């Protein structure tokens, strides 16, 4: 019995003392990650009778690199942050389900940008093609918005009636004010998607910021004459910092 207890204690001791390996410089494993500008463990201030020297190692922050015939500045000299330029989208599959004529379907995604290391940014959007039935080639057109309220890829306008058909999107500010002003702060203003390779800005920010959030609402409305089938496309978002 004592042996069993002893073995269990030994096992428990092993589990407690077991440490997963960590690589130097990156200093991360599956459990945690340490991010730092310098490896302070090997920095210091060596001095002698004829010299004084400061050194650090593992610099990952905004910095200068140089080599034979070149010099590089990585990151903006005037921004001390090494926070990554970051972009997120909450759902990458926008499922419209079964679409009935003259019954608009609305779906939403949240776009979030943190540009702590860049002065200004933009998120552009485009689609690879109209919503298309790949077997027949039949497409659902982009929206032109309500009659008398024409919208374009760069200018949002009113789309409220269920008798105006097509596919389009609205941008509404959740945190920050980075949606284009042509959406007029209204949830009823829409744009059609630009077709790749063209693209238009759906978020745009000046200055440095973090967690700027916009809600994109997709609206799909088809006419009674729309052929049945499976319609799909791809929407491309690209977040780019200012230069």
């Amino acid at each position: 019995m004592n042996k069993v207890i002893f073995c269990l204690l030994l096992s428990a001791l092993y589990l407690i003392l077991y440490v997963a390996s960590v690589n130097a410089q990156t200093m991360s494993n599956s459990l945690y990650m340490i991010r730092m500008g310098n490896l302070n463990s090997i920095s210091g201030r060596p001095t002698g009778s004829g010299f004084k020297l400061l050194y650090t190692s593992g610099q990952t922050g905004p910095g200068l690199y140089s080599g034979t015939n070149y010099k590089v500045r990585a990151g903006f000299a005037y921004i001390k942050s090494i926070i990554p330029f970051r972009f997120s989208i909450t759902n990458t599959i926008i499922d419209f389900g079964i679409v009935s004529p003259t019954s608009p379907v609305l779906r939403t995604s949240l776009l979030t940008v943190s540009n702590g290391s860049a002065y200004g940014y933009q998120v552009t959007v485009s689609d690879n093609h109209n919503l298309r039935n790949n077997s027949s080639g039949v497409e659902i057109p982009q929206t032109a918005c309500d009659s008398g309220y024409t919208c374009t890829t760069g200018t949002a306008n009113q789309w409220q009636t269920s008798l105006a058909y097509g596919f389009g999107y609205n941008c509404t500010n959740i945190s920050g004010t980075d949606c284009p002003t042509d959406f007029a702060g209204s949830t009823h203003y829409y744009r059609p998607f630009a077709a790749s390779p063209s693209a238009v800005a759906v978020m745009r920010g000046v200055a440095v910021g973090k967690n700027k959030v916009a809600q994109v609402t997709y609206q799909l409305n088809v006419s009674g004459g729309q052929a049945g089938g499976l319609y799909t496309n791809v929407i491309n978002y690209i977040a780019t910092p200012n230069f």
Partner: protein
Amino acid sequence: MKYFVFSIKILTIAIAISFVFPMLNTKYQVLDTSSAQAQSVDIGIYPPVFQIQATTPSDVKIPFSVENFTNSSVPLTIALQPFSADQTEDGNITYLQAVDYPDPNLPERIQVWDGDNSIGALTLGPQQKKDLTLEVQIPDNEPKGDYYLSLIFSSDTNSSNNTNSSQASAGIASNILLSIGPVGKASGDIEDFSTPFLVAKGPVPFTVRVRNTSDHYVTPTGNIEITNMFGQIIGKVNLLPVNILANTIRRLPDSAQSNPNSNDYQNIKAVVDSNSFPVAIWPEKFLVGPYTAKLTLAMSDSGPLFTKQIVFFAFPLEYLAAILPIIGLIIFIAVRVSRSRKRL
């Protein structure tokens, strides 16, 4: 002897445990695969810009990293896209489909390396940060010129759909400003330096538009000094040293806007938000009388240096609205007293 046998058994068990646990741990990591289809994408890149000045021949290597902030793996495709400055003059970009580079083949010599492998795609694991290397190979006979490209990491989409749907691809970019020289002297001019002629109160926004007529990008530095009616310098606004691409114009903001957590930025935030384009802002709030603002700008470390001066007036209308009734009342009383004395 009994204790010796017992000790051997314990040692054997300990050795077995020391082998088995790491194996189990490895096995767990192998089997621990999160769902392959990411419903959300959250990615980051650092640095957001690579400013490269090179002469021939050179082999430029720069470390950078991409990061996945979700608990799902995300497959990414790497692409290079040429760009130019957007017409908004605020540092935003416009992607180009066709571009007239001095060497159309140079983008092919820009590569991303994962260790010893040149890659065009990669998959980031859950919460994984990947350190990569950007390499630009510039041969001896490379013509001089500027190249502006975005390095884009875009999430892949699932090709199979069984429902009416759109699939979203999220991409994140870092900009490459590459000057192959030797670069000539910087040149340009102040295209516009202005502010409203009459302001009621501060902060005061200054529009600073600078044209770069060089054949390479520049990073000008400068400031605005504000002088009051007595000739005293009472304010100084440092301009943010932003990049201006070759043969383009850019609006320059002030340096306080690079740190949104600072008190200086909080003082001017309302003005920043109310302007649809970048402005340099003097944060002073109470202003009276004529002021002179002098812009001094160096296009590069070696010049040229430009200066431009403007005058604006400040009149605190809000205070005037409060003071006017009092002045009116005083005048009214004075007139009444004067009339009363005349009657006497």
